[in-house]
């Protein structure tokens, strides 16, 4: 398996599963008294800023190269052909209604939304803000999970 593809699988699993799902969503999904919520909201925001954002940035840096079919074809095709095929793959859907070339911008948009929601929750730790933060983090996590595990074929 190409190294880049392996890195992508590990990085995506680390962010989506280990951090978003197990550390943030589990906490955001738990209700409690106001002072407890405030404490948890601060912990979530700190984890988001210090751990999730750098890991997410490193993961997104792998895209879209890690999903280009040229990764599998280098032994067989000449560079001009690979470039042509990779260009075609960029215009293919990575997930329904989203082309591979647009994956990074969509991830960034969802990441900003999640950060804003977590910041709002930390500023005012209400049940509504907690649920809003949960929803936004869940959207990002779901998006990452939907992305292909392997190359996109044109």
């Amino acid at each position, binding site marked *: *398996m190409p190294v880049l593809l392996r890195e992508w699988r590990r990085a995506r699993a680390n962010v989506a599963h280990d951090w978003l799902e197990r550390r943030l969503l589990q906490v955001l999904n738990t209700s409690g008294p106001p002072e407890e919520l405030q404490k948890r909201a601060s912990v979530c925001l700190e984890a988001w800023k210090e751990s999730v954002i750098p890991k997410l940035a490193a993961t997104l840096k792998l895209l879209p190269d890690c999903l280009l*079919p040229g990764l*599998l*074809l280098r*032994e*067989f*095709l000449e560079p001009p*052909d690979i470039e*042509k*095929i990779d260009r*075609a793959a960029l215009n293919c859907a990575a997930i329904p209604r989203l082309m591979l070339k647009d994956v990074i911008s969509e991830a960034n948009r969802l990441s900003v939304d999640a950060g804003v929601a977590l910041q709002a929750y930390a500023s005012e730790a209400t049940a509504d803000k907690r649920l809003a933060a949960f929803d936004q983090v869940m959207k990002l996590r779901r998006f990452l999970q939907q992305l*292909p*595990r*392997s*190359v*996109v*074929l*044109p």
Partner: protein
Amino acid sequence: MKVTVFDINSGRPWGKWLGIDAVRDAGIEEFQDPALYQGEGRFLALIHLGALLRDGEAEKVAYFDRCGEDLPESCRHRVWWLFYSGAGYSDLHASTSNVHYLRYLVDTEVMYPEDEACFRRFLAQLGSAEDVGDGKLWDELYPEGNHSSSTLLALLSVTAHVSDADRVIDYVLAERRSLVSAHREYSARASEHGVRSTATIEEWIAKLSARKYDEVRLQLEGVLGHVPD
């Protein structure tokens, strides 16, 4: 745990491939004989029946299953039979966990490093003290990923995008190693998904040679999904 390996009727360099000094030769008539399995430890019989066992001959599978069950209680659970051929058995499946029909081919002289690694891992597992009687032991003979089959699927999928697709496929056919790996992974994945895999590597070669790329691609897609995993 001691493992005694028998080479039944092949003359292939199993000792070299498995990294062991002692591989005992035995004839076809001997592997069903309990007398062969005297002593302690486990026994692995690598059985090559050639024309006596063709892919798809299910009645013979039933017969060998019974032969395995008829071994004396004292050794039955310590004996493993691996049937292999020069083409692979993609359509033979044993019903007992100690018998297996290898889905990929074993060449007469050459074993690819990745196959050799699988066999050595298998032998190490068989020689471990663990309970290996649940049939999962045979999984060790197959690679974990399906990189070669994914690559072949990718190649077949992009033939419309390249001007010299035929030359590329000719290269794949000539460089048989990757094609063999792809077929082995395809067979393993088909079996894992419970998909009936009837495409032999000879059929693949015939279809690819005849430029019927779509037929092979559809088979691969049916097992791997449109996006290779």
